[in-house]
């Protein structure tokens, strides 16, 4: 596709991501961690199942992060690599992963912002490595995608009547 590089991840990537995030949740006492791609698509959810619509949440997260990115540039910063939204009971911590994905951590009074930030730094480092590997495979990844719907023209036509 012109201009836009697609990406995909497989079961083993998913398992690695889950393992890192589960360890992070245990260490930080946070409730839930979500990974959202910068275009607003939910990649993974680990921990307590959120009570909200995760798809809508993901699109708003991406918009929030992108808007803040632009604000950073306006004040002469290259980026805000992390953001905090603190509520009375529930809070969110957002951090950039590999410039393509956003880690969103949901936590309540059982966790402290300091601990979440500290532990998030570690898990972001681990996730950066996982994603760097995934993006390095981009050649094979794209080949996989190209083949995915190959020969499915009839099925596509049928879907749209």
């Amino acid at each position: 596709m012109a201009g836009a590089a697609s990406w995909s991840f497989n079961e083993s990537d998913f398992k690695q991501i889950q393992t890192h995030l589960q360890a992070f949740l245990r260490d930080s006492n946070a409730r839930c961690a979500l990974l959202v791609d910068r275009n607003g698509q939910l990649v993974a959810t680990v921990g307590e199942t959120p009570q909200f619509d995760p798809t809508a949440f993901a699109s708003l997260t991406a918009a929030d992060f992108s808007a803040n990115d632009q604000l950073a540039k306006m004040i002469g910063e290259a980026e805000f690599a992390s953001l905090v939204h603190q509520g009375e009971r529930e809070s969110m911590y957002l951090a950039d992963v590999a410039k393509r994905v956003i880690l969103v951590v949901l936590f309540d009074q059982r966790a402290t912002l300091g601990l979440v930030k500290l532990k998030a730094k570690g898990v972001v480092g681990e996730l950066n490595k996982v994603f760097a590997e995934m993006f390095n495979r981009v050649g094979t990844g794209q080949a996989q995608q190209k083949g995915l719907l190959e020969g499915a023209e009839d099925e596509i036509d049928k879907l749209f009547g």
Partner: protein
Amino acid sequence: MSMINYASREINCKLVYYGPGLGGKTTNLEHIYGKVSPNTRGKMISLATETERTLFFDFLPVDLGTIRGFKTRFHLYTVPGQVYYNASRKLILKGVDGIVFVADSQIERMEANVESMQNLYDNMAEYGYDLTKIPFAIQYNKRDLPNAAPIKDLQASLNPGWPIEEAARQKPTPDPAHPGESLVDKVDGEWVGHAPYHEAVAVRGDGVFDTLKAVSKLVLKTLS
């Protein structure tokens, strides 16, 4: 930038409805939201001003069906049409897989349409995307109004055609939606392509699904 999740067997694609202010982008999404079964769509999110003008975007996820065992999930976004919201508009285009340009057919809005189309080309170019190479459809909305410009004039201003350079696409391609018209044709010895277009009255829902289906199909075909 479509995202394929092999773990949950989903193909996620992003469609953006672009166009001048008050042209009917949000109305398109509202109609889709109202018509699609709640099982196959998510919640519609609107970041709008107090006067219901889009401030940042509207968002609606819809599942269009299953292909090869993969759920095809489309994330529909609108952008704010008003000229001064360009910074927000540009952000929404990031990673787009397909675009619907919703033009306002009223003669008085011709200039606003052209300005918005130019803005779309410019914003896409800043991301390094080429509008003539990605799935793109035009919807001429508000066809029921007495001051609607003729389609011929709208096409001449907004969809005049661009040169087709790839040899594979240099073949006469009839427009399936308009018998007798073509999407790719030879004009004065040069191959020229046009975006597919649809006429619509979005408030009544006319043409809304035709446009959505046309552009979604183009997006899925880029993966085949």
